[in-house]
């Protein structure tokens, strides 16, 4: 069983593409689509890495990130934020809340793979 990544994203076809991509790279990919229950999913089994979308049904990715950093079990888990907004203030907000990486949609597969590998190595 490979290293575990949790992808929190509500777009089914993005989930499918990233899941395939990371699985092929040796990751065990878990997915979750709901912002409201995302923390429960994380706490069930803390992954090595979290890929977190900003706009989620139920709860914003920023709020989830804030909770992740507040919990000792997840405070140090690398989090890559995915967002459709790439403005400086969004990047600053994500960084200030503790995001490890910030990626603007539409991203390339190569960028996702490179970032995930770099985060895992760090």
């Amino acid at each position: 069983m490979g290293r575990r990544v949790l992808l929190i994203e509500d777009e089914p076809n993005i989930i499918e593409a990233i899941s395939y991509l990371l699985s092929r790279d040796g990751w065990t990919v878990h997915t979750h689509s709901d912002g409201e229950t995302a923390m429960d999913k994380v706490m069930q089994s803390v992954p090595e890495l979290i890929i977190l979308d900003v706009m989620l049904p139920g709860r914003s990715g920023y709020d989830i990130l804030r909770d992740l950093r507040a919990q000792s079990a997840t405070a140090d888990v690398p989090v890559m934020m995915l967002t459709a907004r790439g403005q400086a203030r969004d990047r600053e907000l994500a960084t200030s809340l503790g995001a490890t990486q910030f990626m603007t949609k539409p991203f390339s597969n190569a960028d996702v793979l490179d970032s995930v590998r770099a985060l895992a190595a760090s």
Partner: protein
Amino acid sequence: MAERALTGTRVRNRRLDLGLRQADVARQLNISGSYLNLIEHNRRRITDPLLAELALVLDIDVALLGGGTADAILGPLAEAAAAFPDVHIENTKAEELIDRFPGWAALISAQAGRIAQLEQRAQALGDRLAHDTQIASSLHEVISTATAIRSTASILVESPDLDPDWRGRFHGNIDTDAARLAESSQALLGFLDTEVEAGDGALATPVEAADTVMATWQHYVPEVETQTFPDLMQLEPATREIVEGWIERMGQDAARLPLSSFEQAARAMAYDPARLATRFHVPLEVVLRRLAHLPPDQGHPAMGVATCDAAGVVTYQKPVLDFRMARAGAACPLWPLYQALTHPGRAVRRVVQMPGVARTPFECFAIATPVGDVAFGVEQRIEATMLVRPARGDVAPETVGPGCRICAVESCASRRHPSIV
């Protein structure tokens, strides 16, 4: 009796500005010259009836002459001055300006108010684009779908040995997402266009408000068939004036092309504008307008129309499907409406299509003609008219844009500025 310390000064200044003699003014008012002299030097109070008469003789608004509006103008004047700190203003002379040139002072004040209103509107539109949840949601949908397509397409291209099941699944995903992208991007553009064109109801220009009125009526005014006029008293005066002008023209067209016989002929002639113009002996532009203003519930084909003046400003339009021209000269110059404008009198027929998936090809008929009365030494006004309807047949459409700002065509010799899409 009103206490107006400076009214006399204003009377004197106004009289001198008009080049009138004190004695002549006094004679018109049936008062003595010496009494007027005392008034002008603020040594006699002036009654309201006399002030009204003076205003009449001096051809000035009584409120301006009486100073009643001075306080109201002073504030906006100060604000107007403060808005341009780099311009040297004799601030201490503001009251003198109001006294000596009340009309000009009122104009500056009104302009300052108008600038503030326009700035507020620009701000409101900017805020809406930045923070409107519907726009944000539409944009998110577009970008998310594009992300899914990009990611999936890359996997397909970069994985020649992809399992056939996965390949089929990804192909299906791309197909689904492509359709979603087409829908969501069209919805977004339509929303942006509508929002920018319509603006906030309270901030809409009279033309925008008039457009809304016509849209409410589906651009059909049944009263014109009987040469009567609908009640427009509920509209703002400026909006009413515009709508009245449009309806008046519809009425003129209806008089030349009576509904019953025109509908019958239009059906028989497959809505061919040129044949109809010949049949009824009327100029082509009359037929173009009339075709676009047939009763909406009688099974006629969907038809829109646009007119523009010689500056290219769209002066009237009836949108149809996704046809809607930008106002204020920001439209794509490739529309036949503008091609017609370059050759007045020549009828133009083109099939055009806007860029993007699932766009409707439109058959356009256009002509530019002189309007208004002919007079020696007066430049004849030119107006272009274009009828637009979904194209029938398989003529390859030419590409026209929705306006440079939101046009996706990269290589275009007519592009004025970069696109935001």
